[in-house]
């Protein structure tokens, strides 16, 4: 992260405190306003093709018995984040923050982690930046493999570079890789893969080489750090992104979250979403055409199909609409690995080339 960006975030955190002090100086009851994250304030942005947050705000007033403690806690968290950014290179997990609160002034300690989590989201919404930017980080999930060189800062403060081919089993997308600068990249596409099994398969079958691709292991639902990494590579290098998932509505949902963000992160979706990414499959048509070993769809799958069908993001995409329809009729789902019925090489030799041709 550049220094200017860091200073901007620190300034935004400081402003929260300033607003409160100004009210006190005007002898008014201090209150703050936070963009509301309820369902009714989540709106679809047709230009950006994702859900974003609307104009509705909620208040936290020092004059409300139910607000005041939370207001104090929010200010304390903002203060904590600012101080950490100023004095160290440290990253804090949400869980750690919950425990750290025990060392604060009496009364500010969080009783449940859900309290501190909510306040972190409040601050995200207020300053319009994901929490990683003020160093509240998730457990890492996801890794990257391919010919891309990144510049990062070690915990000791040294600046180093790493090429993601020089790592035996893929580079974990942890706090440092998440913030690393992209120095060089020879690849001309990104393939994001749902399962570790298929990620390893593509590594071993030389897909990164054959397709000149960066492989990203999502390990299920993509973490926010992984989504940001994909978005950054895509925007900086202007190379296409393909998403390769299991053949079920959940897989399609995983792709959708990368393309358009989730409802839960509506307040920062513009920082996370890669609307141009393309979903490879496994599609419902693939299950049929490739005669893949399959399981019956469960109640929860049908529920997801229903939800996805109502989503405005599908309204325009004839291909996805058709696939959802077919899934409902087919009533079956298949894993990525089911393609191995045709042998190890088949995915790389036949399946993916066909898909790249189709999707352009």
């Amino acid at each position, binding site marked *: 992260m550049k220094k200017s960006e860091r200073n901007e975030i620190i300034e935004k955190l400081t402003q929260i*405190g300033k607003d409160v002090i100004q009210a006190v100086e005007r002898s008014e*009851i201090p209150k703050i306003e936070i963009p509301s994250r309820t369902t009714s304030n989540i709106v679809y942005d047709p230009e950006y093709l994702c859900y974003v947050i609307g104009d509705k705000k909620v208040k936290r007033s020092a004059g409300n018995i139910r607000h005041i403690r939370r207001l104090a806690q929010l200010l304390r968290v903002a203060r904590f984040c600012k101080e950490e950014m100023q004095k160290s290179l440290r990253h804090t997990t949400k869980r750690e923050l919950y425990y750290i609160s025990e060392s604060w002034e009496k009364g500010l300690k969080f009783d449940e982690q859900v309290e501190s989590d909510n306040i972190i989201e409040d601050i995200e919404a207020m300053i319009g930046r994901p929490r990683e930017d003020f160093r509240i980080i998730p457990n890492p999930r996801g890794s990257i493999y391919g010919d891309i060189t990144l510049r990062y800062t070690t915990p000791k403060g040294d600046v180093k570079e790493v090429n993601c081919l020089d790592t035996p089993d893929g580079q974990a997308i942890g706090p440092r890789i998440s913030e690393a600068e992209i120095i060089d990249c020879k690849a001309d596409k990104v393939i994001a893969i749902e399962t570790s099994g298929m990620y390893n398969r593509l590594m071993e079958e030389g897909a990164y080489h054959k397709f000149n691709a960066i492989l990203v292991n999502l390990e299920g639902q993509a973490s926010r750090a992984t989504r940001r990494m994909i978005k950054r590579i895509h925007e900086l290098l202007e190379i296409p992104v393909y998403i390769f998932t299991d053949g079920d509505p959940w897989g399609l949902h995983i792709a959708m979250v990368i393309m358009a963000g989730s409802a*839960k992160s509506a307040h920062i979706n513009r920082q996370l979403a890669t609307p141009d990414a393309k979903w490879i499959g496994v599609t419902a048509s693939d299950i049929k055409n490739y005669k893949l070993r399959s399981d019956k769809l469960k109640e929860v799958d049908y529920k997801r199909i229903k939800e996805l069908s109502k989503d405005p993001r599908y309204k325009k995409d004839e291909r996805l609409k058709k696939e959802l329809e077919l899934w409902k009729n087919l009533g079956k789902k298949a894993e990525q690995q089911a393609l191995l019925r045709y042998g190890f090489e088949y995915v790389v030799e036949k399946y993916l080339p066909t898909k790249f041709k189709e999707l352009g």
Partner: protein
Amino acid sequence: MEKVRTAEELAAQQREISVAEFFEKNRHLLGFDNPSKALLTVVKEAVDNSLDAAEEARILPEVFVKVEMLGEDRFKVTVEDNGPGIVKKEIPNIFGKLLYGSKFHQLRQSRGQQGIGISAAVLYAQLTTGKPTIVESKTSPRGTTKIFHIKIDTLKNEPEILKEDEVKNGLKHTGTRITLEIEGKYVQRYHSVDEYLKQTALANPHASITYISPTGEKHEYRRAIKKLPKMPKAIKPHPYGVELGILMRMLKSTPYTKLSSFLQNEVSRVGSTSAEGICVLAGLELTRRPQDLTHEEQERPLKAMQKVKLMRPQTDWLSPIGEKNILEGLKNMIKAEFYTARTREPVVYRGNPFQIEVALAYGGELKEKQDAEIILMRLANYVPLLYQASSCAITKAVTKTNWRRYGLEQSGGKGMPHGPMLLLVHMASTWVPFTSESKEAIANYPEIMKEIKLAIQDCGRDLLRYIRKQARARRESRRLDIFQKYLPLVIENAEILAESKKKHNIEPILEKVVNADLIEEEEEEEIVGGENEEE
């Protein structure tokens, strides 16, 4: 092929069966299913009779109950009252004949109804121990005490007098003492004689009850009020509930010679105008002789009566315990924080007037069982019901009420609520519809359910008001504490965050905050669904 038997041969075996024989074989119908229930039933029937006797004579009842253990499964039950006593010639019939009594042919609220209870106890005693029942009675303060040893001749359903005596120095005052020897089993807690008498005392705050238990403990329940409940009057059947068969019998046997007089005198709430209306609707002349109506004609007045608008039964037909008296009784029995009671207006089911009373005690010493189910006491005409709770209309009404609305815990908003509460429900009626002759559960008529629910809701609202008031007081004092604690934290942290050099004075803001309206903004914090993406 066997020989065909003729109708004549078969007819020779036909015989009449005595009702005593019938119940001897079917005693479970009368509450003598098993030894522990039998002991309770014997005590119950005797105590009911004692209370009824004293009240009918307008005497404040004093009842003495003693249960002695003679052997592992053998008990002697003695019940004595201060009633008017029983005249000599009636004693054998009352105790030695099933289906003999004063109340069956009247529509009137009373404990016993069918003239079967006490003689069934006598029958049970002789069946299990072979012993006769001893009845002692004195009808005038300076008179003699009559003593009878009675059994029932079950083949004839007639009393059999084994011994008869008359003594000078018998009972101390007027009244009756009955002594039975029975097979039984003494249990404690839920279905016990102890519990039954405790609840009886609560439901009859005008009565004093002394009880000596098989373990020798003496329980004394002193009366909480010194006034007898008003005497329930006998009534005529109400037109909305009478059945065709009964009306036809009434038409046949009436002394009245005109249909309109019959209607005005033999059913209740029909005056001359209503009588005329009924006759017109029925297409029958006012002056028709009721006894002469053809079968088809008999049906018409019944239908007509249903269409005419009539007043509901008079209040004085029934004798509820009364809100004040129930409260006295409850306070006498249990130290709670809050009491309330409700006596509803009388209404009718199937022509029988009835009246529901509900009372509750909350908190105080009941808090010991904070998280357990509430205590529910069911009463019918002053008599506690201990068995078959689950099939009783009272239990159903209680469990179908959403008690969460009234501040109690109740999983799923139905079932028995939990909390430090005692709930009492009383049904007073000229005819309580029990699900069986052992009188343990009230049948599930919609009209009855509705009344119980309404009464419960009334009391529930009182309860909620109390619980809310308490909660509000607690809240107010917490409010100030919270603002005093957190406002400094808000301002201090904002100062640090804003890198403000100046320390701000908290007092003016604190004053504003505390005096701000209590109106709390609705937070909208319903976060959208979707799986937690990380961590």
